[in-house]
């Protein structure tokens, strides 16, 4: 029998598609020819190896580490229809041991399109995935998210593992999905809690990873290299992963929805150095300024919401008081220049509390956010919210405020305070605020999933 015909029969055997007459021809050939049996045996061995290789990729174990885990991995497989025939042969032959297959995940969704300008939302199964146009944000079942555009092809391997075949992706991995792996032909990028971008040029057989924050491992040719902080790394077939000069450029990668915690200086109002609230007329980044307020420890039967310190609002100031002003508030200028704000939402929240007092005790707190193009300049837009604090000093209430930012925002002002909604004290010596406290201010920037900025 010609080798070509034998190969066709072997292919039919492996694909479970032989007709009765072909079975006869295969049996006759194998019975009579040692050479054909060798070819047949080689083919089965290769087939078993391929099945083993691909089922190992479903595991959470890095592919480079599979040698030690091979025997253990093999115990949990179940049969694939074709494997029934093959396994029968393999066991009888006694050559390969049990090459049986992992329970098929083919019909199970392992990822989801969560946002896209061109694709309907929906579940994705194992296999190759690309989009005809536009942009898509994918969330894996592990919680890892990546964004991709038209021209990029990925293979979804398991709930926490993909292969980037060609193109560019941006990745954000929450803690629960630590270990998320992006395979490339030049090496595997294993997340250790971070955000990064990967691009693959399949024609040039070149991959590049840009680590924006956190830590990744790159597994290549059995070696593991760890990178921390901002790094640009190239991966090639011929060299180990290498850090290269140049700054990371997240804007060159499509990115999934991102939540950035915006640092508010002294937002926890913790004790420590003798921190003074500055004069509100001073326009400086990262300092609290405003009316008469001070950081205190437990006071008037009220314990801080968190830690040992909190902000006590005292008064609007002697001159303002006489003029009938009804507020005591503090503010901080925050730098937003590092952020790409197209479609971004800003959100701030704080905890408020007050003494029980009596019917003349003011109850209202206010939180304001304003966006500015210049430091100390006019506001572009402002949002504010107010909330009444209850009379139970043991409980803290939350006040929060949010709004959609304009792209040309450069600075934000966060302003929080209490207002005299019950009695407006105007005489010198009168106490405007009987015991009003603020603690644990947070500000978050929610950046929507976006395509690369070109």
């Amino acid at each position, binding site marked *: 029998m010609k080798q070509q015909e034998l*190969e*066709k029969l*072997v*292919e*039919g055997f492996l*694909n*479970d*598609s*032989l007709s*009765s007459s072909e*079975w*006869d021809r*295969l*049996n006759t050939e*194998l*019975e009579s020819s*040692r050479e054909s*049996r060798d070819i*047949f*045996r*080689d*083919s089965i*061995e*290769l*087939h078993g*190896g*391929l*099945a*083993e*290789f*691909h089922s190992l*990729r479903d595991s959470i174990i890095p*592919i480079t580490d*599979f*040698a030690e885990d*091979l*025997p253990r991995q093999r115990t949990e497989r179940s049969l*694939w229809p074709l494997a029934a*025939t093959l396994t*029968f*042969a393999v066991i*009888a*032959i*006694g*050559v*390969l*041991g049990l090459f049986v*297959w992992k329970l*098929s995940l*083919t019909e199970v969704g392992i990822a989801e399109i969560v946002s896209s300008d061109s694709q309907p939302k929906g579940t994705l*199964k*194992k*296999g*190759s995935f690309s989009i005809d146009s536009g942009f898509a944000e994918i969330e894996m079942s592990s919680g890892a998210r990546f964004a991709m555009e038209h021209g990029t092809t990925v*293979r979804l*391997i398991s709930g926490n593992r993909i292969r980037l*075949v060609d193109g560019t992706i941006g990745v954000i991995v929450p803690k629960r999905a630590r270990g998320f792996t992006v395979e490339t*032909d030049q090496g595997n990028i294993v997340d250790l809690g971070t955000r990064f971008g990967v691009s693959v040029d*399949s024609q040039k057989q070149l991959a590049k990873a840009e680590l924006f924050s956190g830590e990744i491992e790159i597994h290549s040719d059995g070696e593991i290299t760890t990178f921390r902080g901002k790094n640009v790394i190239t991966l090639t*077939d011929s060299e180990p992963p290498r850090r290269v000069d140049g700054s990371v450029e997240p804007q060159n990668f499509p990115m999934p929805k991102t939540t950035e915690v915006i640092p508010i200086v002294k937002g926890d109002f913790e004790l420590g150095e003798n921190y003074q609230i500055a004069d509100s007329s001073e326009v400086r980044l990262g300092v609290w300024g405003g009316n008469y307020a001070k950081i205190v420890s437990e006071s008037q039967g009220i314990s801080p919401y968190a830690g040992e310190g909190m902000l006590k609002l005292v008064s609007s100031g002697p001159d303002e008081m006489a003029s009938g002003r009804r507020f005591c508030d503090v503010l901080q200028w925050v730098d937003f220049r590092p952020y790409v704000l197209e479609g971004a939402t800003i959100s701030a929240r704080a905890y408020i509390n007050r003494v029980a007092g009596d019917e003349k005790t003011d109850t209202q707190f206010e939180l304001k956010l304003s966006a500015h193009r210049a430091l100390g300049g006019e506001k572009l837009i402002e949002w504010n919210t107010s909330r009444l604090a209850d009379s139970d000093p043991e409980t803290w209430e939350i006040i929060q405020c949010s709004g959609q930012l304009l792209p040309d925002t450069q600075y934000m002002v966060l302003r929080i305070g209490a207002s005299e909604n019950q009695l407006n004290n105007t005489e010198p010596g009168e106490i405007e605020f009987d015991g009003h406290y603020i603690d644990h201010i947070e500000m978050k920037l929610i950046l929507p999933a976006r395509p690369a900025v070109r």
Partner: protein
Amino acid sequence: EKRQRNRLSDAVMEILADEAEPVDSDSQVQLVTALKHCLTKLPPRSRSMIEMLYEDEKKPAQIAEEINWEVNGVYVALSRARSQLKACVNAKLKQAPAE
């Protein structure tokens, strides 16, 4: 003797079993390691088909439907891909240092 239909005959199984050489786990690991390398050397279309077959666990008919090919074309392509892999794996295993 009447031949059993649609499976390897007992006679073939016996011969294959007699001729089988013991294979230890090290050589299986070497095979899979070589395959990992050789898969990256396959042309993209061939690799994609191998992945659809083994990773996505699709049948040749499903692959044919997905890529809009005749089923026989898929069989031929798979056979060629296996031949390429076999050649590459053999070369790679010969390079591997002797234990």
